[in-house]
């Protein structure tokens, strides 16, 4: 059965394996050109266009591999046999449906997880200094300034890609078994997997043990806000999106929001907040209000119980969070595989 699985699978394996090998070669080729680590590492890294391109491509490939595996390996795995009728040929050899699916899943799954794991491992090794620089507080705009714990890097680095790949494969197989036709199964798999890939970082991951810190808003820690001032210097309309400084290198900032005395966050703040001009803005003389007015405003905010709440995932939680998310997706993959076996035994005729 392993022989047959291999014989049917080798072209798809070669296609994905080839793409991953090319990526690995790029990483190996450029690894020698990485700057030595120092406190200017990130700036040096960014100034090298090739390194930036390779890193971006590496992240993109790891993000795409699970979807590709789910769509091109998972969905057709059983659906193609059901569509062509070859399941009637193979299930009447001396091999049960269960062993047939188990072998196919095991061979494909191990290959997929090994391929993603290898790529992710090499990318991790390659970007070791980059992570170190970001965790040490070096800053850059764009992808090179994103910590590995923040989306979209979190799902492209570490061990989560392996779990995502297992999940995508199991999802594709299960959908293929239920839908029984290759192309619709591929389309549904892609749609569902991309949905999961978006829902997880946007709605779910922050509930996996984020930290929370609350501070008083001061002229010094305030970064900015959105407010409208009318021509005669009065605050008009809503004041919103007030943010304060967040100094946790390498952390994933989830929320930076103002809460009232009851601890509730509102989108709009009272209009008098417009006078709370942060110190750095006052220093450049762009503030329409006097320093006294600003000081009074900050005092009022404090007296009325307004504070800033910051929710974040500290850099130190990286591997714990990786382990939790991997466990979730491996469990989902196991669940889908179990459902596939059940469906194949009981519902496929």
């Amino acid at each position, binding site marked *: 059965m392993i022989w*047959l699985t291999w014989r049917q699978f080798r072209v798809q394996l070669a296609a994905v394996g080839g793409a991953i090998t090319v990526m690995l070669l790029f990483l190996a080729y450029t690894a020698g050109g990485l700057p030595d680590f120092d406190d200017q590492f990130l700036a040096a890294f960014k100034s090298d266009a090739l390194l930036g391109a390779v890193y971006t491509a590496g992240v993109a490939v790891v993000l795409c591999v699970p979807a590709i595996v789910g769509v091109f390996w998972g969905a057709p795995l059983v659906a193609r046999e059901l569509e062509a*009728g*070859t399941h009637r040929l193979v299930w009447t050899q*001396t091999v049960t449906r269960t062993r047939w699916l188990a072998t196919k899943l095991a061979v494909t799954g191990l290959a997929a997880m090994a391929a993603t794991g290898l790529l992710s491992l090499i990318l991790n090794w390659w970007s070791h200094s980059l992570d170190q620089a970001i965790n040490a507080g070096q800053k850059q705009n764009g992808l090179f300034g994103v910590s590995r714990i923040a989306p979209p890097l979190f799902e492209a680095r570490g061990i989560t890609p392996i779990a995502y790949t297992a999940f995508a494969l199991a999802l594709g197989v299960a959908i293929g078994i239920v839908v029984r036709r290759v192309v619709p199964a591929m389309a549904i798999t892609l749609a569902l997997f991309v949905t999961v890939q978006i829902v997880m970082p946007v709605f779910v991951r922050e509930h996996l043990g984020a930290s929370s810190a609350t501070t008083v808003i001061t002229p010094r820690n305030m970064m900015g806000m959105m407010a409208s001032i009318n021509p005669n210097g009065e605050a008009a309309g809503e004041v919103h999106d007030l943010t304060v400084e967040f100094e946790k290198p390498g952390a994933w900032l989830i929320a930076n929001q103002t809460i009232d005395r009851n601890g509730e966050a509102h989108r709009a703040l009272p209009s008098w907040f417009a006078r709370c001009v942060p110190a750095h803005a006052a220093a450049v003389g762009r503030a329409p209000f006097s320093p006294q007015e600003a000081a009074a405003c900050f005092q009022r905010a404090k007296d009325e119980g307004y504070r800033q709440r910051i929710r974040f995932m500290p850099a130190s939680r990286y591997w714990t969070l990786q382990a939790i998310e991997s466990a979730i997706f491996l469990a989902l993959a196991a669940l889908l595989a179990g459902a596939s076996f059940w469906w194949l035994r009981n519902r496929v005729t």
Partner: protein
Amino acid sequence: MTPVLRTDALTKSFGRKRALAECTLDVPAGRVVGLVGPNGAGKSTLLNLAVGMLTPTSGTIEVFGEAPASGMPKVGFVAQDTPTYANLSVDDHLRLGEHLNPGWDHALADARMERLGLDRAQKARKLSGGQRAQLALTLGLAKRPELLILDEPVASLDPLARREFLGDLMEAVAEHELSVILSSHLVSDLERACDHLIVLVDSRVQLAGDMDVLLATHHRLTGPRRDSLPEEFDVVAATHSDRQSSLVVRTDTPIYDPNWTVTQLSLEDIVLAYMGRRANAAQPRTLEAVR
């Protein structure tokens, strides 16, 4: 001796449609069984139940005394339209058979390939219908099953390929002492090959028995028109013209009534009589002649 196939009130429904209803059969070992019936009669359903591709809605089915399941070593199956892996070569199919069947008969497979003259490197998608059917049959035979089930193996073949395929099958059956169940919607396909016949019409078994017994117990009676059917035989079909009645009857006893002229029936006549019976049963049964 355990019957190769035994069913009891076997019923299979797909949604609200009954594909097979209350089918009770007992197929003895060592026979070449022809399963005949019009398209959609439930032949494929019965055969797929027998190899464990389907599970019964109700009733029981046993193959060699056990409930059928996928991967039975004693049962070979050549499915309808003889599916093969389009991208795999002939040789790959043989290796597939070798890897998936502990009892794989190398010599048999090689000898058949030799005789059929198939190009082993050819992809299955490039084979003709007849060649594909032969490849599927080779897989079924080289597994060395005790029962080989073939679902309309010749339906898509031209008359010459049909004859070759069936001849080939019979040769293999004689050589390896297989039991065979073979379905077709054409009696002529089965007439030469089979020694046991099952007629399936409208999802029900209409007739089952050894071919020689069926031929010996069915007769056509022709005689002066009668409006009442004779009580002493089982009348399968009756047609009446102005003056004459013609009956197909089943009886174990000799017919002495001198009013009847008794003639031999061909297998096709018998099968058609049973197929017609089902269709007529749907209408009110009347002996009124069409004038």
